[in-house]
């Protein structure tokens, strides 16, 4: 009898931790820009990731396990971002989310790739998925997908011959500027003013004067959110009336809020927006607004999708396998009909790039108005 009791005790000692491990929460670490110039990006991403985690946990989690999400603040500093991704890896998470800034992604992705941990991030610079980091996955389009659509719009719809390009001198901005310049030139559109600006820049008076001096038919603006808002205000202050064209960062909800009336008339290609004619996106936007009392921008949608991408890939594997997650994400097609949290049908290619519908939107009366849905490239 004593022998039986001792056996039970020893078994319990060894088996209990293993059982506890099986039911332990799935740990995701989000490394994001929660302060500094990128606070808008990181805060939206964080809030939406929290929303998605709360939803999934309320429905029982992933394969019966709850998600635990922890947030680290990069202060919008690539050096800090790299150090925090290393710290995250040391904590052995199931997956890493973020950062949102391309420069921070670029310096931190090698660490995640070396550790074999999936990194689901918000960066949009074209080169990020071409550098061979096989654990890196986007939550939005890369510039190689969005810029051809914008250049086509400028050349064919606006029939512009001369364009001024205002861009932010970081990895995100330079990638976009190189890509759009190439695409515009290929379509016979001349870049008459190529204006680089600094991240966090407050005063755009001189830059707008330079842009005007080339008498452009349109101005392409590729800045981060806060700088986009300041640039739009300055363009209005100086009475610029030519079309202002950009990508998601020019006509996002936060930019419209910050720029006020100055955002009216701005237009561009947008990968993710709660104003799209899509019931899932609208429902997500409503839930977000109820919880946080403001309208999420595309960065918010990225954070939300990121969590659901991890969920879908894990369910495809049928097990929580940290090392298997990157392979499970590659080539994955997630249908919104089966997983509404993914919002729109989505395909992830072998490089971590995405394919899905996108939109052409204008800002009218302080609201983003989607004019056209652009189909998946593979359609």
């Amino acid at each position, binding site marked *: 009898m004593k022998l039986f009791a001792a056996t039970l005790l020893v078994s319990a000692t060894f088996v209990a931790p293993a059982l506890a491990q099986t039911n332990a929460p799935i740990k995701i670490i989000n490394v994001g820009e*929660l*302060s*500094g*110039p990128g*606070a*808008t990006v990181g*805060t939206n991403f964080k809030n939406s990731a929290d929303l998605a985690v709360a939803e999934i946990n309320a429905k029982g989690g992933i394969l019966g396990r709850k998600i635990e999400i922890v947030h680290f603040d990069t202060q919008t500093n690539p050096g800090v971002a790299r150090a925090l991704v290393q710290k995250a890896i040391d904590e052995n998470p199931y997956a890493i989310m973020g950062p949102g800034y391309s420069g921070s992604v670029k310096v931190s992705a090698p660490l995640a790739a070396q550790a074999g941990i999936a990194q689901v991030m918000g960066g949009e610079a074209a080169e990020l998925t071409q550098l061979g980091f096989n654990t890196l996955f986007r939550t939005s389009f890369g510039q190689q997908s969005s810029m051809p659509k914008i250049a086509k719009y400028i050349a064919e719809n606006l029939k512009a011959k001369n364009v001024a390009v205002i861009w932010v*001198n970081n990895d995100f901005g330079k990638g976009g500027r190189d890509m759009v310049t190439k695409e515009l030139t290929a379509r016979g559109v001349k870049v008459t003013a190529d*204006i*680089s*600006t*600094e991240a*966090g*820049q*407050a*005063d755009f*008076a*001189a*830059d707008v*004067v*330079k842009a*005007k*001096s080339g008498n452009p038919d349109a101005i392409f603006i590729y800045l981060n959110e*806060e700088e986009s*808002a*300041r640039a739009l*205000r*300055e363009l*209005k*202050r*100086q*009475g610029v009336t030519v079309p202002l064209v950009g990508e998601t960062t020019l006509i996002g909800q*936060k930019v419209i*809020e*910050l*720029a*006020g009336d100055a955002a009216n008339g701005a237009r561009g290609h947008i990968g993710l927006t709660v104003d799209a004619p899509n019931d899932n996106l609208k429902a997500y936007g409503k839930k977000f607004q109820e919880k946080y009392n403001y309208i999420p921008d595309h960065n918010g949608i990225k954070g939300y999708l990121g969590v659901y991408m991890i969920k879908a890939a894990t369910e495809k594997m049928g097990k929580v396998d940290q090392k298997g997650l990157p392979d499970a994400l590659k080539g994955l097609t997630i249908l919104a009909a089966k997983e509404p949290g993914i919002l729109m049908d989505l395909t992830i290619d072998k490089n971590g790039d995405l394919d899905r519908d996108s939109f052409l939107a204008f800002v009218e009366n302080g609201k983003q108005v989607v004019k056209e849905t652009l189909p998946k490239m593979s359609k």
Partner: protein
Amino acid sequence: MMNFINLILSGLATGAIYALVAIGFTLLWQTSQTINFAQGEFVMVPAFFVLATLNLGMPLPIALLVGLALSMLVLGVLFKNLLVDPMLRHGVLPLAICTMALSIFLKETVKEVYSAEASPFPSFLPEGNLIFFGANISIQSVSIFVFAICAVLALQAFLARTSTGRQMQATAQNPYVAKLLGVPVERMIMYTFLINAALVALASFLISPVYLAKFSAGETLGLAAFIAAIVGGFNQIRGAIVGGLLLGIVDNLAAAYISTQYRGAVPLFLLIAVILFRPQGLMGRAEERTV
């Protein structure tokens, strides 16, 4: 030419803001030997006082008045009584270090209490454009310049033409003699802190609609105003005005005709040149000190 006019005008508007903040530097230095390295954050904080009041449902004019009053209380009275007075008796350097710590405290507090994100700030000035010699001139830029310069002129008139102003000048020139003559020196010093708080609040209300309200908004402004004060002459109010306007114009011209990347370096070159060739500043007065 049209571009040049636009650059000069927007430079003057920004420069007028620098001048308001730089005058605060010179006033505090003259009356209490205080170098306030939190001056930039002093420009940032009033905007958040106004936003908090607006969130309570107050109209903009009331919110601006509440913001001004709170600024004078917190950045004037409390700053002097809780930080400057206890530290000044230990010398200028410990006080300067304390103001650096205050700068970090203010930034982090605003970030924690309000948000790390930028917020839109309503403008109380007219918007729109007018055509001037073929150039499209921003009415807002002109208004900022005019408003700031009027504030400076009013301050100059107050200092030169009122009894209190002259007593403040006497305190700045020699507090010991002023005290012997019956000037309430402590009260005059407090007035200086209140005026500084009012000036930074005004600068905040004028610039925040353009730069947006953000916890880090004071970093650039504080440095620019400090450079402007030294370039113009730390011991002269008119020096702070000249320094501020000059810096605003130079900054804009450098960004347009040299490079946006190097725009931050040009004012520093100007600062080095002034320190080398005219250490008392462009409008400053050489002072002899006993060592």
